[in-house]
């Protein structure tokens, strides 16, 4: 699926990356906790999140996340937009809640970048 199709499915606004909408994506990860994103998200996936601060962009850069979808109609701060532009990471914004966003994408063939976590951290 291309980002153009994602935009159509989610009735999303493009905040960053107008020139990168032909990009293909197959998988996604959704979380508001960046440590969870770091632990489980995979390169080339969409990141669905309700967080809007610059750390979302940093986290995505570290993992080579394909594009970010900010859910629940969230609009990021100017410094978040600036960083995304600098690092060339597309940012979309949708009014759908995280559950609806995930469901609508899943219905059209986007899969989770991991299905389940069977071997979580060994507790010390």
């Amino acid at each position, binding site marked *: 699926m291309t980002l153009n199709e994602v935009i159509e499915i989610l009735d999303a606004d493009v905040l960053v990356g107008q020139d990168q909408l032909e990009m293909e994506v197959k998988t996604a990860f959704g979380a*508001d*906790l*960046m*440590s*969870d*994103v*770091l*632990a489980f998200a995979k*390169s080339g996936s969409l990141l669905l*999140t309700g*967080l809007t*601060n*610059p*750390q*979302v962009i*940093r*986290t995505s*850069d*570290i*993992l*080579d996340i394909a594009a970010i979808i900010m859910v629940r109609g969230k609009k990021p701060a100017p*410094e978040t937009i600036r960083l995304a532009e600098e*690092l060339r990471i597309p940012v979309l914004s949708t009014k759908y809640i995280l559950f609806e966003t995930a469901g609508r994408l899943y219905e059209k063939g986007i899969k989770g970048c991991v299905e389940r976590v069977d071997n*979580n*951290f060994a*507790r*010390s």
Partner: protein
Amino acid sequence: MHVHEKPTFESNYTVQGGNFDEAGKVASQIKVILKKLGLQTDVVRKAALVAYESEINIVSYARKGTISISVTPGQVKIETTDEGQGIPDINLAMQEGYSTATSKIREMGFGAGMGLCNIKKFSDYFQITSEIGKGTHLKMIINIENGV
């Protein structure tokens, strides 16, 4: 392990405590350098991730700190030293979910007691030492399977 090999790359970075806007900048730089060195994708990812969580810890809990990185054909070594409050109980700090994070840290999407667990999980070798009132020292090694 190729612990005695001469480094192909070495660098040190200073991180200012409390500077939440810049948090992650050093890790981003490290990632770019490791990519340029031609390391495998999963090595770059692990090293950048470990550097990032460590950087977040310095910004969140210390006055200042340094991140040093050293790359040899066999491994990436990342060490962080900070001037901060130190960790009273390391076993407790290493427990997933245990956190002393402020609301500012949580707003950034961290502070859920996962940082040190993530660092340990993605490192092939991990060592933590801490002294109350002085600071914390982390040493992480990520092995490079087939050399650079």
